[in-house]
């Protein structure tokens, strides 16, 4: 499926937020700190990490929902740096949001929600064309014309997420940032939506950045997976590779912590349980952000952030001691 052509390249992306602590005091929150990666056309890149690691911020910064503090986003060879390039970019790159309850306007009908991107980008010539396109989009996601005139509150969580996906598909995008699109759904509905993402990818040749914290879901849908911790990317590799052969100590413990839906495996599974909590991104440790919870941390880890290097073909890791511990 994945061709070799790079569709999206992110170089040194930084997204800092100024946190107001009151009384003229403020602090810089480094939500995303120097993250670089690329996504090939037609592939699904999974982005995993725990809450507060910056995975959602990466997705939003790529689409320039936040103005990145520094770094480049290069789409199809063109850097997104001007109003015009952004407008073009937004016709090709869209987003599906996590919460299907708050991401749909309760005062709009389904057809207006789905057609809103068409309205914004003036993508139809007549009213009939708009209606036809809406019906086509609803068809893609397994809804029908009967649903078009209803309001979002009349639908279940799974159906709402379908509406959100139809909206994301409206401009005929090539690239979709899926921000935890199945986290809010029940298991049986989750599987339906995952299959739909798969089908749409085959049918429309889409490229996904799939952000999620459910590691089993991410493995299922992704070609490659990136792991983030406290604003930094710590590992990136093929999905199979990262599951069978994780190199970064954080990825190792993260993967071993996943409760497997298999009692025998669960009994024999040697979990690497991390001590302590994730530090606040406002007070991130010096050097490697993971060192405070890492079994292998040495003094060198406190000194500098390890570079994000390719240690095996296609397998990138940011760890000073990767060679010793693997």
């Amino acid at each position, binding site marked *: 499926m994945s061709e070799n052509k790079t569709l999206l390249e992110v170089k040194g992306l930084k997204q800092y937020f100024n946190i107001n602590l009151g009384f003229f005091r403020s602090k810089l929150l480094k939500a995303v700190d120097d993250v670089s990666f690329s996504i090939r056309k037609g592939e699904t890149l999974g982005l995993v990490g725990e809450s507060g690691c910056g995975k959602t911020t990466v997705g939003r910064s790529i689409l320039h929902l936040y103005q990145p503090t520094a770094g480049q986003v290069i789409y199809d060879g063109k850097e997104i740096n001007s109003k015009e390039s952004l407008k073009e970019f937004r016709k090709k790159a869209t987003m599906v949001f996590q919460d299907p309850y708050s991401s749909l306007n309760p005062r709009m009908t389904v057809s207006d929600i789905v057609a809103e991107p068409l309205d914004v980008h003036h993508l139809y010539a007549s009213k009939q064309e708009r209606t036809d396109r809406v019906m086509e989009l609803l068809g893609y996601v397994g809804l029908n014309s009967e649903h078009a005139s209803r309001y979002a509150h009349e639908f279940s969580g799974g159906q709402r997420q379908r509406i959100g996906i139809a909206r994301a598909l409206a401009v005929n995008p090539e690239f979709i940032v899926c921000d935890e699109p199945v986290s809010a759904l029940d298991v049986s509905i989750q*599987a339906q939506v995952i299959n739909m993402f798969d089908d749409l990818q085959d049918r429309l040749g889409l490229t996904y950045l799939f952000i999620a914290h459910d590691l089993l879901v991410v*493995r299922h849908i992704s070609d490659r997976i990136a792991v983030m911790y406290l604003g930094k990317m710590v590992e990136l590799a093929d999905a199979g590779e990262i599951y069978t052969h994780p190199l970064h100590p954080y990825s190792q413990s993260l993967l071993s912590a996943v*409760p497997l*839906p*298999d009692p025998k495996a669960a009994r024999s599974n040697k979990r690497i349980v991390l001590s302590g909590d994730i530090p606040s991104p406002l007070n991130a440790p010096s050097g490697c952000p993971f060192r405070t919870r890492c079994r292998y941390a040495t003094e060198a880890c406190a000194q500098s952030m390890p570079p994000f290097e390719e240690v095996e073909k296609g397998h990138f890791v940011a760890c000073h001691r990767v060679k010793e511990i693997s």
Partner: protein
Amino acid sequence: MALLEVKDLHTSFFTDAGEVKAVDGVSFELDRGKVLGIVGESGSGKSVTAYSIMQILAPTGKIIGGSVKLDGTELVGADENLMRKVRGNRISIIFQDPMTSLNPTYTIGHQLMEAIMLHTDRNRKQASARALEMLQLVNVNEPQRRLKQYPFELSGGMRQRVMIAMALACEPDILIADEPTTALDVTIQAQILELMQDLQKKLGMAIIMITHDLGVVAQLCDEVIVMYAGSICERGSADEIFYQPAHEYTKGLMRSIPRDENNGQRLKPITGTPIDLLNMPKGCPFAPRCDHAMKICLTERAPRMQVGETHYSSCWVNVKDAAEHGEIDLEGGQDHV
């Protein structure tokens, strides 16, 4: 005698839109020192079952039938004095969201001591010592300092530890854990699950683990109950449920989750949407979404049938299979009809 015996429990919510049968004929037993998992999707009645046992239902909810016996003592219809002695003392509960289940205006120590002093005859000093001991038990670092802190000063995982400490302070016989790790991150979830496993071994209480995460169930539970639309569709040991699911709904659930066996393949989801509890079908509640539904599924509830040593399922497909093999063995069949 089982420690907890729930028999044909019915709990309904009376709303403006009509009666919602949240729990519709649930029966199970729980023995001392066992971990029972209750799994199901949102609205399946798993939490309401737990709240009914504790009798902490919202004002619109009412237990309309059945019995809950703790050590032989009937709790349904018992007076509030008895229930107050049961809650927190014999049966404790921890909730899903550690952010909202602690009172933000009191210190951790105050809240822990309140529970201890209410249920035991310890004085302030002894209660304070016990609170400290409990925090050490649940591996809270710097416990002495935590006692004086407010909930907002603690992280999510830490707050859930405090909740567990509070629930275990009076050494209950049963701990009900209502999605205790759903709001937590994976690595923190692993910490909490390991803690619960350790404490269960150390203190020997029985646990009712309510969750929608089959992974958590596989990790922790001896026995599993699968619920759908207010009733139990299948019950058995963890191995029986995961390796030989009998009910069509359980089979569908197992096919829906991404795991090693189906990695790289298409998932086979359950079709359709969850049931509307206001418009329950007459027969099996899962029939409208079931690929193997027969005529009888639409008109009548399936009886509970023994399909393995400790394995029961309420599904007409099982009945049909057994009939074809000439080995019909209906057990407690009237429970669910």
